């Protein structure tokens, strides 16, 4: 697969031969920011030749609140609840990435039970994110309502677990530097085990109806192809990268936390098209279930936070760190510089869905406008994270 390079840059294309902006045959369409297929306030400036995309520029920033500036103005811990709002589908993985970066800097050691809780909550997050993404993708394809609501039914069960553990369904604010905020409530593990045991039945059903579905295959196979070389060079991470056939999963590469204790495989795609991305997510769901089964079996008793962890007056020593984990959307990283004070001197979020949008134009060039909608859906963006 090879991607044609985008030809010109600039907001307004110069396509007319006499230097005028439009030659009358091209059509400039501004898709969004209030468009049902853009998953939030996101705009695509598209130039169309008939139905074919000639040029596409993503425009965003409508939800920009300068999260980094706010975080540099408050203490380390105060930013923890704010990380929930980045990718509001996966607040627990955001929490973990931030906690990991701070722990790297301050040398806090996470107790074993807390590590297990982190793995369990992160995999549950992946479960609900991938499930609902599959629903959203089908919604973009025109399967209005049913698949999404179906996926959301399963997601609600995971959110119920989050609620009983953290008190919130989406804005969990659960991890702390050196551990977790509170221990599992009684009966939580049984409830989680039941969910994990029941999940494959839903997946079987979902796949029987959809994976072999003729319309789904016709709409997605060969659409939005991405080559291996380009996806690596463009810093694509997560299911997108693996769908292009690149074996790079941070759970295997970095082995952060205790991921070296679990047996699971990294599914890889062959074509790098939208269908592969859909399938990768379904397969990753199965792998997540495997990890969950092992973690729920092995989880030990013990403390959940490093006794050296301080909630008040936390000041890590001068230095910098970059912590990253494999979030459901890709590599979520936090880059912190400490000057010894109570606030971070520099606080940077590496947002996976923002960077995955870099090659949106390359994937859409030469495809029809209806395909662009699906391709955007398969990238899996959350605007809270893109705009920050």
């Amino acid at each position, binding site marked *: 697969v090879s991607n044609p390079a985008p030809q010109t840059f600039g907001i307004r294309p110069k396509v007319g031969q006499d230097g005028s902006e439009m030659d009358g045959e091209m059509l400039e369409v501004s898709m969004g920011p209030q468009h049902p297929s853009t998953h939030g306030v996101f705009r695509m400036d598209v130039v169309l030749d008939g139905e074919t995309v000639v040029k596409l520029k993503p425009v965003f920033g409508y939800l920009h609140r*300068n999260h980094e500036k706010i975080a540099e103005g408050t203490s380390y811990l105060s930013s923890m609840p704010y990380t929930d709002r980045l990718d509001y589908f996966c607040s627990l993985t955001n929490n973990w990435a931030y906690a990991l970066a701070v722990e790297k800097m301050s040398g806090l050691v996470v107790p074993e039970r807390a590590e297990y809780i982190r793995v369990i909550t992160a995999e549950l997050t992946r479960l609900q994110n991938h499930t609902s993404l599959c629903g959203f993708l089908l919604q973009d394809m025109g399967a209005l309502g049913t698949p999404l609501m179906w996926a959301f039914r399963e997601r609600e069960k995971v959110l119920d677990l989050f609620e009983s553990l953290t008190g919130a369904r989406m804005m969990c604010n659960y991890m702390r530097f050196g551990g977790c905020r509170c221990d599992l409530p009684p009966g939580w593990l049984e409830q989680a085990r039941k969910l994990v045991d029941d999940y494959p039945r839903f997946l079987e059903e979902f796949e029987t109806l959809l994976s072999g579905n003729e319309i789904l295959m016709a709409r997605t196979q060969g659409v939005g192809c991405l080559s291996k070389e380009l996806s690596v060079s463009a810093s694509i991470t997560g299911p997108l990268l693996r769908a292009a056939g690149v074996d790079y999963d941070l759970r295997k590469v970095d082995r952060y936390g205790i991921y070296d204790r679990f047996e699971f495989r990294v599914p890889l795609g062959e074509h790098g098209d939208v269908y592969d991305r859909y399938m990768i997510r379904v397969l990753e769901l199965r792998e997540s279930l495997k990890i969950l089964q092992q973690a729920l079996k092995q989880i030990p008793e013990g403390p959940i936070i490093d006794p050296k962890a301080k909630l008040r007056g936390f000041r890590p020593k001068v230095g910098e760190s970059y912590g990253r984990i494999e979030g459901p959307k890709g590599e979520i990283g936090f880059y912190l510089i400490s000057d010894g004070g109570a606030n971070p001197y520099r606080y940077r979020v590496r947002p996976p869905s923002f960077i995955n949008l870099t090659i949106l134009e390359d994937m859409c060039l030469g495809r029809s406008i209806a395909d662009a909608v699906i391709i955007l859906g398969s990238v899996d963006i959350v605007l809270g994270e893109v*705009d920050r």
Partner: protein
Amino acid sequence: LLVAPADALAVAKFLRDDPNLRLEMCSNVTGVDWPERDEKVKVKKLVDGVEKEVEEVRHHPGFQEAVYHLFSVSLKHGPVVLRQRTVNRGDDCSVTSLTPVWRGCEFQEREAYDLFGLRFTGHPDLRRILMWDEFKDHPMRKDYVEPDDYEYEPTPHDEVHDRSKAHYPVPEVKA
């Protein structure tokens, strides 16, 4: 390891292509602002033949940094941190864009330009990305002053307002 800024592209290409390094993924790009500051340092000095501790003020000129975190996908190592430093924070606040080497820098360098005012020479499409196009300042700089009215945007009424002011000069109020 310090290298002259003119060699930035060559260094980046070497880091990407060298068979032992193969840092083909530039995962994270960001700016860091270091405004000029005065540091008080205690120095031991001979004053009139007697060794004394004297406080001295050391001046550090301000600069900005573009920080790149590089990883190798094939060899699975990293991060290698690459920094580019500007001459100062004002008129010569530019570094070489590494987008020709790593495509993934494109949006992130635009973001660093938008929020820090780092100018990347050789970037194919250096525009604001998160703030709106008419925005003037760079909000992530440490000396950025927040406006009193966030919602203010210039409107056609401003022009009318100015003209009306010219018509009926507002008397200055003495404090």
